[in-house]
């Protein structure tokens, strides 16, 4: 007796699977598992590769930096956690050679440095760097091309750093964590860590930065940090991981990760919708068998077991096939993209599989739950009165569990409640809109559908009659289209913003320390050589003296400074000031009025106080707002300025950006130096030395290598995003097919009857196509609207991007919706109509 339900379930399952009756529900589960597995496996592998890539920017997986020497015990204990370590001590110091003096960025590194990325050496001054696995030997110094110019030295010469003598043996091109700042960047000198003590530059009073680098498995790193973190002093120590990277690359990677997450979430929702649709259809098809079994004496618990077993079999089969399909799919894509997209070589991760299995089971269970509950409660009387459906008709409850299940899945998967809620809420808004519009449609249908019974009237009559079923269908079509739109538009916007960030011809060299006198001849010289400079910005270094009446004291010891400045975090002693009446490109005033747009005479600023425009984030960090007065010491003069506007700056662009922009009047008395940037095509690189020859005192920064690095990462991520877009599109289209087929199923009976009554095939077909055209276009329009809402939320709340309207989709979405859904409807209708009526009727059994 107890084995009966299982046997019966198995028998039903076997036969139905053989006869293709389970194909849609099985397919939906396979789809959900396969897409979740392939997407998350792919993104896991891609992220592995990208994280490795970005790890190069901190030269390790983790970095501990400190202002005081780091306890050697900590480094030792890291090794017991199976972590590899390396060290760097850096400071600004004077270098002396050839009777010339220069301030340098001195880096002393241990033998294992860098743990990620490589040191690059230039074969000639300013030439493209070549990787090396070595570090300077004792007594050797590798120095930046610029320093050769500044000091007028050449290879083999000696250089004095602090109190020690070194031999210059190599031209240093770049180190992985060399930083990206154009300002304050002194030419770099690399020496061996064992030599640092001899230079005596790390004595008290000097600003020294001590770093320890760590690499190892994520879990070992986390374990180590758990042990380490209680010992860290937040004032002194900073623990850095790749994710903390705020460089353009770091942000691109973070954004790409969010996109993958989003795309996978949408894939889950799509699959869930497909399963829901299929489960509903499955349950309806089993109304009769359940009524029969009950009539024959089956108890409710027997029925329950039979169907739970069946769902179990289906889910199991779906998960197994889905996992295989997903893995193969992902592997195919990886090999197809080989060469373009670098992925981690580790081909298997457990997390994606677990997520996929979890998704498959939760979908199968929760989305089948309500249809099944309905199924269980089918009264046996249905065998006599065919119109009796389930007495269990809590549609509200059904939507609640379905919605809850989706939210749960999204949350579990993303571990990010915010992104899940945003998607979910915009989904709810869409559903609300749709319900309202369906009602509108029905009213409209009453007007449009009156008159003689043609195909058009028939279509409207159907939509009208089955308003609730139709609204459910509409909602699922619209949801699908919306999700596809979100992914599509998101991808376009992200890739576009990345491209905008580094357009062709982005400046790859920066010049600083251009004097007032050099300015005209430099512009002339460059344009004679066919090179355009991106404008020269005046710069002056100013030292903060006061903010309003609060006097800032810098000249005391560091420890004291730390405590007095606690409330104004991120406060440097000095700031780079520029002045202009023109607002720089990419800047936007968000508070106050730009000082170039009004005249100083008519302002109510006190005499001797000039306007300043500050950057938003620095204002927040330093707690400066509109109307605050800042006092700077420039040269030996005191200048007081008042904040009259706050700007946002696009930090993603590779152009000089400034926190503080003053009015030119404030700076009239000062000598300025200028900064500019220009683009030099790679093939003209050899001309560089000749080009710069007349301006020996001008400092040049070569950021070409950096830009290429950023660009290649962006290219990679874009290609990966392309793949994910395609995958989601395929998933979405499949869901649409499933939906059309399920709804075609419901029409089968009606078609058969119409057919039997002698309705012409062409008329039936036309009416079905019209119906799907109407549903498709309305769903498309609704999707376009809901798309705007969710994109706005996503872009402003999660992706921190500029959000804009996407009017074009308001037209594209209804059109493609109508065409695609209409076409799908037409094909499955054609399939139905090509069967003869007899078959059609017997299929209804």
């Amino acid at each position, binding site marked *: *007796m107890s084995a*009966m339900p299982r*046997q*019966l379930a198995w*028998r*039903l399952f076997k*036969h*139905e699977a053989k*006869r293709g*009756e389970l194909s849609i529900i099985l397919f939906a589960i396979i789809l959900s598992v396969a897409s979740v597995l392939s997407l998350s496996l792919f993104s896991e592998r891609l992220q592995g590769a990208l994280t490795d890539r970005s790890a190069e920017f901190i030269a390790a997986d983790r970095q501990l930096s400190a202002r005081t020497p780091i306890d050697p015990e900590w480094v030792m204990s890291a090794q017991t956690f199976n972590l590899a370590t390396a060290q760097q001590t850096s400071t600004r110091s004077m270098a002396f050679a050839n009777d010339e003096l220069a301030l340098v960025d001195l880096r002393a590194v241990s033998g294992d440095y860098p743990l990620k990325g490589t040191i690059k050496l230039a074969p000639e001054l300013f030439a493209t760097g070549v990787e090396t696995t070595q570090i300077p030997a004792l007594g050797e110094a590798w120095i930046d091309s610029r320093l050769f110019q500044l000091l007028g030295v050449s290879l083999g010469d000696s250089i004095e750093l602090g109190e020690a003598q070194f031999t210059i043996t190599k031209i240093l091109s770049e180190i992985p964590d060399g930083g990206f700042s154009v300002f304050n960047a002194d030419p770099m000198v690399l020496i061996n860590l064992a030599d640092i003590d001899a230079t005596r530059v790390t004595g008290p009073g000097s600003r020294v930065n001590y770093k320890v680098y760590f690499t190892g498995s994520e879990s070992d790193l986390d374990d180590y940090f758990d042990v380490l973190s209680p010992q860290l002093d937040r004032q002194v120590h900073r623990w850095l991981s790749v994710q903390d990277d705020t460089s353009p690359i770091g942000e691109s990677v973070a954004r790409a990760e969010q996109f993958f997450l989003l795309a996978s979430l949408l894939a889950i929702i799509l699959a869930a919708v497909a399963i829901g649709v299929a489960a509903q259809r499955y349950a309806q098809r089993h109304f*009769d*068998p359940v*009524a*029969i*079994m*009950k*009539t*024959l*004496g*089956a*108890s*409710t618990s*027997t029925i329950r077991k039979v169907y739970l077993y069946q769902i179990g079999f289906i889910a199991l089969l779906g998960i197994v096939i889905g996992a295989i399909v997903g893995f193969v799919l992902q592997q195919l894509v990886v090999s197809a993209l080989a060469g373009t997209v670098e992925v981690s070589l580790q081909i298997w991760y457990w997390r994606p599989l677990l997520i996929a299995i979890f998704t498959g089971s939760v979908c199968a269970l929760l989305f089948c739950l309500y249809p099944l509950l309905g199924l269980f409660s089918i*009264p*046996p*009387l249905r*065998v*006599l*009165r*065919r119109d009796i459906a389930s007495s269990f008709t809590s549609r509200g409850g059904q939507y609640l569990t379905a919605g809850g299940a989706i939210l749960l899945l999204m949350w579990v998967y993303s571990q990010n409640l915010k992104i899940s809620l945003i998607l979910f809420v915009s989904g709810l808004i869409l559903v609300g809109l749709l319900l309202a519009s369906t009602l509108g449609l029905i009213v409209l249908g009453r007007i449009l559908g009156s008159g003689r019974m043609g195909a058009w009237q028939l279509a409207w009559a159907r939509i009208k009659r089955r308003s609730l079923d139709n609204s459910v269908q509409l909602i699922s079509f619209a949801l699908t289209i919306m999700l596809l739109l979100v992914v599509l538009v998101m991808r376009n916007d992200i890739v576009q913003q990345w491209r905008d960030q580094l357009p062709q011809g982005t400046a790859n060299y920066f010049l600083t320390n251009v004097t007032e006198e050099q300015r005209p001849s430099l512009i002339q010289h460059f344009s004679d050589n066919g090179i355009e400079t991106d404008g020269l910005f005046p710069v002056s270094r100013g030292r903060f003296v006061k903010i309003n009446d609060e006097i800032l004291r810098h000249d005391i010891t560091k420890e004291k400074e730390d405590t007095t400045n606690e409330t104004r975090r991120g406060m440097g002693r000095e700031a780079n000031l520029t002045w202009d009446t023109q607002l720089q490109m990419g800047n936007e005033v968000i508070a106050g009025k730009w000082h170039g747009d009004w005249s100083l005479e008519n302002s109510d600023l006190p005499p001797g106080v000039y306007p300043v425009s500050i950057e938003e984030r620095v204002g927040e960090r330093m707690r400066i707002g509109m109307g605050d007065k800042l006092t700077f010491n420039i040269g030996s003069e005191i200048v007081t300025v008042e904040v009259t506007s706050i700007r946002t700056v696009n930090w993603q662009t590779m152009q000089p950006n400034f926190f503080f922009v003053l009015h030119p009047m404030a700076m009239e008395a000062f000598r300025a130096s200028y900064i500019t940037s220009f683009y030099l095509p790679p093939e003209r690189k050899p001309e560089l030395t000749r080009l710069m020859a007349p301006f020996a005192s001008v400092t040049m920064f070569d950021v070409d290598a950096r830009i290429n690095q950023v660009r290649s990462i962006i290219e990679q991520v874009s290609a990966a995003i392309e793949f994910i877009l395609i995958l989601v599109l395929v998933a979405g289209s499949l869901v649409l097919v499933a939906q059309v087929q399920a709804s075609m199923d419901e029409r089968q009976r009606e078609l058969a009857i119409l057919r039997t009554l002698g309705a012409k095939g062409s008329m039936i077909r036309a009416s079905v196509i019209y119906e799907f055209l109407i549903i498709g276009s309305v769903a498309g329009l609704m999707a376009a609207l809901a798309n705007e809402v969710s994109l706005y939320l996503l872009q402003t709340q999660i992706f921190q991007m500029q959000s804009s309207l996407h009017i074009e989709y308001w037209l594209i979405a209804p059109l493609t919706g109508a065409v695609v859904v209409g076409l799908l409807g037409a094909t499955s209708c054609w399939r139905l109509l090509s069967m003869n009526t007899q078959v059609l009727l*017997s*299929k209804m*059994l």
Partner: protein
Amino acid sequence: MIKTENLIKTVSTSEGELQILQPTNFSVEEGQSIAIVGSSGSGKSTLLGLLAGLDTASSGEIWLDGAPLHALDEEARAQLRGEKVGFIFQSFMLVPSLTALENIMLPAEITGLSNPKIRALEVLKQVGVAHRAGHYPNQLSGGEQQRVAIARAFITQPKILFADEPTGNLDAKNSDNVESLLFELNKQSNTTLVLVTHDPELALKCDRQLSMNAGVLEEVTV
């Protein structure tokens, strides 16, 4: 075997309460065959549904082989149906995804009879469609489907068999076949037979005839 007392069924419609079955009192002896006739919509299926315990009466009592059907809940009624009752319907009501043989095995399995497959093959042979055992319902003709349905109804050797227009969907020849099969099995296993029919000839073959007229059941004397 069957006995009703003041059986009443009312349903609520948009126009208020509607009494579709007037107080009904009648009884059927063991092994008897009775026919319920009457015009469409008169309440025949309603009565059948009540007698078989598929539906609950608004008031009144039904006794089925000594069991008070009116006092049982759905689970208990299901068990009673499984043990004592067989059904045949106008639209056959076979499970589409089970083969003919498996459809027949179904009640035996549900009620936990031993060797359901052997029993099923046996009755399948009796109804003359043994060669169709592995076919699905939609691969069978109407007559064949109804024979399978009859086989399914008899596999548990029920004490009472309810049939709602068993020949309604069949042509004359198939009807005759099914009818004679039905009565044959009825005689063989001494089953009480309650059948609803529009066919006067079929009604005449029964021991008794009752006529339903707008919810009122009357004995017809021929």
